[in-house]
Each structure stands twice: as structure tokens, then as C-alpha cells.
């Protein structure tokens, strides 16, 4: 045992080197994707599948070098990460996200001549991959930098704004845009129908859910039966439930002409609404019940001690305290209803799902995208919006609003 052994040995071995492996993987995958896969494709019209084009064909040598340069810089940054490095990387990722529509503009300029107005520019595999990988990088950087929800939402909104402006100004030949222009009125009507169906079903299930949850609290016996039935309903596949609604409603409409005058029939909004409410009840009732139950008895006791009446205790103490969990139920229900309404298009309820199924029937993929992408956006917006609302309404919101996700 010499004295030297007791001294700390200098630790500069390669084990100490800690690159951000997540970003390394993501950026390498991105580089590989844009160089190896097709970035865009050009098709002469709506149905014929397109001719694929690589990175250099699409945006030229200068563009390709610029994009690869930014990516290599980001790759180098993730080798030796630091707080500043992450901030620079966030700027770089945002820059790439902003450049995406400009790339398409350049590509449409280079690949589509003005004498073929029918030609469409489709986004290729590499384009979609790059978009999703960039979003993953963005999530990772957000977590590393612990950005607040508000700031990151603002940033994403900024990116979306630039995309919107680009889409309006210079992307005439983009397939999705052409598809939208061809059925402009139809699209907005479908969107309205979709949102109306979702809000109506959520509103009804909030009312029904509150009533059922109250009944359950009063009569403990019916709680088990009610949850059993709701569980059972939730298990039945949506397409089966929608189908089974057709028969009884058609019969009802045939029996009572008044109902059919109101627009109730086996096909259309009525069976869809019924099935949507049936599905929404389980998450709604469960969360409402848990929300009302979890309010601590001490708090209620204190309220009683202050001389509050029963109704006052419910509306001024129990309900406000239950609100965040209740909103969580509304969030789950809404997101689920947005997806299920798409299936409801099969029984003629309209909505954005109609584009998906029509597009699949005609093998017109742009039309499928025209239905699927807005549904995805709606679900994400509803999720983020209602989640933010629940954050704000949480009683101790000020204490934890700093780094909540």
C-alpha cells in the first residue's frame, strides 16, 4: 500500500465521455433517411402513383448541403452536450422544422413545370420520417431544457403559423392542398360535423356521467352493476356497436314519424351519437366518481363546521376540488370521441372519417390524408388544451406550474 493508491486518480478515460445518445441516434437516422430514401414524388394526376425524387433532385446541391450541414452541426453538438448546447440545438431543430415547407416550395419549383397544372407534389417517405424525427428531437430537447408547457406550445404555434403562411403563399402544387381546394366546402362542413358530434356526445356524457356518479354515491349497490354494464359496453368493438345501432333506430323511426321528421333514422347522426355516448360514459363516470370520492373528509368536515349547508358544501367545496380529476375524464372522453367519430362515418354520420373511407375506397391516398391528418390534429389539440386547463384549475397550481409537462 503506497500513498499513491490513496490519491484519487485523474478520471479522464473515455468512460467519462457522455454524449446525448438519444439525439445522436435521431440525427444519424435523419441524415440516413434524407440521403437514402425518396424525399418527394411527383405524380401527373390524382390516381397515378408518382415518380420518386431524392434529396439532390428535389432541392439541388446547395439545399442538400445546407440541410446536411445543419444536421451535422446538431450531431456535433449532441456529442458534448451542455445547457447552451441544448439551447442551440433547439434553435437548430426549430430552424429545420421551419425549413420543411420551404424545401417543398423549392422542390415544386424544380420538378414541376408550369405547363402541367394537374401535376401533384407528394411528400415522400424521407420527408415524413424527417418530420417525425424532428418532433422526437424537439420532445427530447424540451425535456432536457425543462421548458414550460406554455413556452413550448407558443413555439409550436409559431412553427405552425409559418407552415400555414407557406401553404397559402407558395404550395399550389402540393397534393394535399389540391385535394383540399377540390373539395373546399365539403371539408369545412365535415370538420363542423365532426366537432359538433364530438361536442354533443361529450356534453351529454358529462350530464349523464355526473348524474350516474351521484346516484352511485347514494346507492352503493347499483355502483357494481353500473360499472359492470359500462365496462361491457366499452369492450364491444366500435364498428360492431355502430352497426348494431342501425336496426333499433331504424325501427324507432318507422314507429314514430315524429322522430324521423327530427332526422332520427337508422343511418346518420342519431345512431352515431348514441354509440358515442355509450362509449364515453365509462371514462366519464369513472373519473367523476373518483373525483368526487377523493375529496378529503376533513375538508368537508371543516366546511360543515363553518356552517355550510349541504348544497353549499357540494358546489363550493367538493365540486371545485374534484374539478381537475373530472377534467381528466373529459379529456380522455373527448380524445376517444374524436377517434370514434371517424368510424361513425361508416354509418353515414359524416365528419372527417368520410374522407378516410371514401379515399380508401377510391385508392386516393391524398384524400385519406385529408381526413386522417385533421383528426390527428384535433385529438392533439383537445388533449393539450384540456390538459392545460386541468393544470390551471389544480388548487395548488402556483406551486407546480413551473416545470409541469
Amino acid at each position, binding site marked *: 500500500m503506497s500513498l499513491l493508491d490513496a490519491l484519487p486518480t485523474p478520471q479522464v478515460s473515455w468512460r467519462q465521455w457522455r454524449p*446525448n*445518445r*438519444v439525439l445522436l441516434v435521431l440525427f444519424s437516422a435523419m441524415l440516413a433517411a434524407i440521403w437514402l430514401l425518396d424525399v418527394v414524388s411527383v405524380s401527373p394526376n390524382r390516381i397515378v402513383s408518382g415518380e420518386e425524387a431524392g434529396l439532390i433532385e428535389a432541392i439541388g446541391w446547395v439545399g442538400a448541403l445546407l440541410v446536411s450541414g445543419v444536421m451535422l452541426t446538431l450531431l456535433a453538438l449532441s456529442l458534448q452536450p451542455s445547457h447552451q448546447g441544448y439551447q442551440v440545438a433547439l434553435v437548430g431543430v426549430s430552424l429545420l422544422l421551419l425549413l420543411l415547407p420551404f424545401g417543398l416550395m423549392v422542390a415544386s419549383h424544380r420538378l414541376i413545370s408550369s405547363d402541367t397544372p394537374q401535376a401533384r407534389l407528394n411528400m415522400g*417517405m424521407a420527408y415524413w420520417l424527417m418530420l417525425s424525427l424532428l418532433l*422526437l428531437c424537439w*420532445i*427530447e430537447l424540451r*425535456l432536457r431544457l425543462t421548458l414550460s408547457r406554455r413556452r413550448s406550445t407558443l413555439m409550436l404555434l409559431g412553427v405552425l403559423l409559418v407552415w400555414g403562411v407557406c401553404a397559402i403563399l407558395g404550395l399550389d402544387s402540393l397534393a394535399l392542398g389540391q385535394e383540399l381546394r377540390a373539395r373546399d366546402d365539403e371539408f369545412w362542413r365535415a370538420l363542423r360535423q365532426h366537432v359538433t358530434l364530438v361536442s354533443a356526445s361529450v356534453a351529454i356524457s358529462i350530464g349523464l356521467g355526473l348524474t350516474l356518479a351521484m346516484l352511485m354515491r347514494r346507492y352503493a349497490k347499483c*355502483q*357494481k352493476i353500473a*360499472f*359492470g354494464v359500462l*365496462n*361491457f359496453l366499452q*369492450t*364491444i*368493438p*366500435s*364498428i*360492431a*356497436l355502430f*352497426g*348494431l345501432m*342501425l*336496426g333499433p333506430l331504424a325501427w324507432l323511426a318507422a314507429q314514430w314519424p315524429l322522430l324521423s321528421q327530427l332526422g332520427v333514422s337508422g343511418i346518420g347522426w342519431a345512431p352515431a351519437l348514441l354509440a358515442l355516448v355509450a362509449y364515453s360514459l*365509462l*371514462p366519464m363516470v*369513472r*373519473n367523476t*366518481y*373518483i373525483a368526487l370520492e377523493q375529496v378529503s373528509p376533513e375538508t368537508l368536515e371543516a366546511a360543515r363546521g363553518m356552517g355550510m349547508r349541504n348544497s353549499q358544501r357540494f358546489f363550493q367545496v367538493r365540486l371545485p376540488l374534484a374539478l381537475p*380529476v373530472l377534467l*381528466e375524464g373529459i379529456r*380522455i372522453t373527448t*380524445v376517444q370521441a*374524436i*377517434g*370514434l367519430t*371517424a*368510424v361513425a362515418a*361508416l*354509418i353515414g354520420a359524416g365528419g372527417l*372519417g368520410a374522407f*378516410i*373511407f371514401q*379515399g*380508401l*375506397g377510391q385508392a386516393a*391516398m391524398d384524400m*385519406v*390524408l385529408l*381526413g*386522417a*391528418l385533421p*383528426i*390527428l390534429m384535433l*385529438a*392533439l389539440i383537445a*388533449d393539450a388544451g384540456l390538459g392545460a386547463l386541468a393544470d390551471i384549475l389544480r388548487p395548488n397550481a402556483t406551486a407546480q406550474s413551473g416545470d409541469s*409537462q
Partner: protein
Amino acid sequence: MNPSVGRRSLGLHGANRAIWPAVWFALLMLCVWGFPHADGVLRSLEPDANQVVYQRASLASLLLQHLFVVSVAAVVTIVGGVLAAIAVTREGGRDFLPMVAQVASLGQTFPPVAVLALAVPALGFGTLPIIVALVLYGMLPIVRNTLGGLQDVDKDIKSAAIAMGMTPWQVLRQVELPLAAPVILAGIRTSVTINISTAAIGATVGARNLGDPIIAGIVNGNMAYIVQGALTIALLALTVDSLFERFQERLRSRLYTS
């Protein structure tokens, strides 16, 4: 809050639950073998149609197709999802943990129909794109629940296991996975239930399964077709779900008695 975890604690109780899988399965078999001979009953639903028994394919073969697609997807998702979750909770993959957790919870807001629809332009029509879409979507609840289950294992228990001289592999196999098993199983149940439902919608993109009669019925306005498809698929979902429920029950009683 995870819907699949909360659901269990408030369900029906009692020993009579054990018979449900058998009941649903018996009804399912009755549907599959009974409908082709139930011309009279189906005729009363749709008196004017010239055909009421779905004949393009037998319900039994459609059921097998459906089961095949769902089970292939389930095997891939379970293996992939559990392995991915284990990988990111080990020392080597911990860098990826925050992002994977975030993506798994964010991805569940994607509607399954939209995922299916987006898979078609990329992969084409037929059975394969459906399996891929089901795998992609079904992975999320499993990853999420496995992560939750593994992270909820008490640190003291793990330390005790290491102190007893267990290797990391033994800690995982004999301590972490058994303790997380109920939560993982709940995730698998959610995933499979969603997949049975989503696979039926796959009938619109050219896969042959139990969604076929429903779609054909809606297109031709034939209620009898819809009833055959819808009842069979609902009973399939109920059979599988009640089996999982039974399995969870047994797992829990074994975990708490031993």
C-alpha cells in the same frame, strides 16, 4: 391516470366471474356455427333482401383470420413493448427513458383509425399494413404500463435483492417482473382489446376478417349481415377480455397469497 389500471378496481366482484369466459365463448361458437342455419331468424330482420346469410366466406374462417391478425400483432407488440420498456429502465438505456415515456403517453392520443389510415399510403392495402398498424398502436399501452410497473417497484426491495447477491438479471426476472406483472398485464389487455376493434376497421382496407360482414351490410343496407358480423365480433371481444380479467384475478391472488 391510466384507464386500464383504474378499471380493474371497480369491476364486478365475486366467484361467479369465473364462468364468464366460458359463457361468452359458448355464445361465440353458437353465433359462428348457428348463423348459417338461422335463415328464418335473420329473415325476420330483413324480409325483402334476397340473401340474409352472409355467404362470401364462412364466419368461422373470418373468425380465424381475425384471430390470426390480432395474435400475430399481439405477440410482436408484447415482446417488443416489454423488451423496449426493460431496455430503457436498465443502466445502459436510461438516456432514452424520458423520451420513450413521453412518446408512449402522447401516442395514445392518436386515434387508431387515423393510424390505420396513415399506414395504408405507406404500406399499401391488405393484411400486412393492418398488422403493422396494430403493432405500432398496440405497443404504446404496453410500453407505458411496463414502464409504470417497473418504476413502481420499491427501491428498497431492489436493494435488498442486490444485497442478497442476486445478479441484475436475477433481480429483473425474480423481483421486478413478477411485481410489475399485474400492471403489465393490464396494459396487454388494453392493447389487445383495442386491436380486436381496430382490426375490424381493417376490413375497409381490404383485409378479410369479421369486419367484412358489417361493411358489406352497411354498404348494401342489409341489417342481417351487420347483425352476424357485429354479434360475432362483440362476442369475440368479450371472450378475450373476460379471459384477461380471469387471468389478472389469478395473478393477483397468487401475488398476494405467496
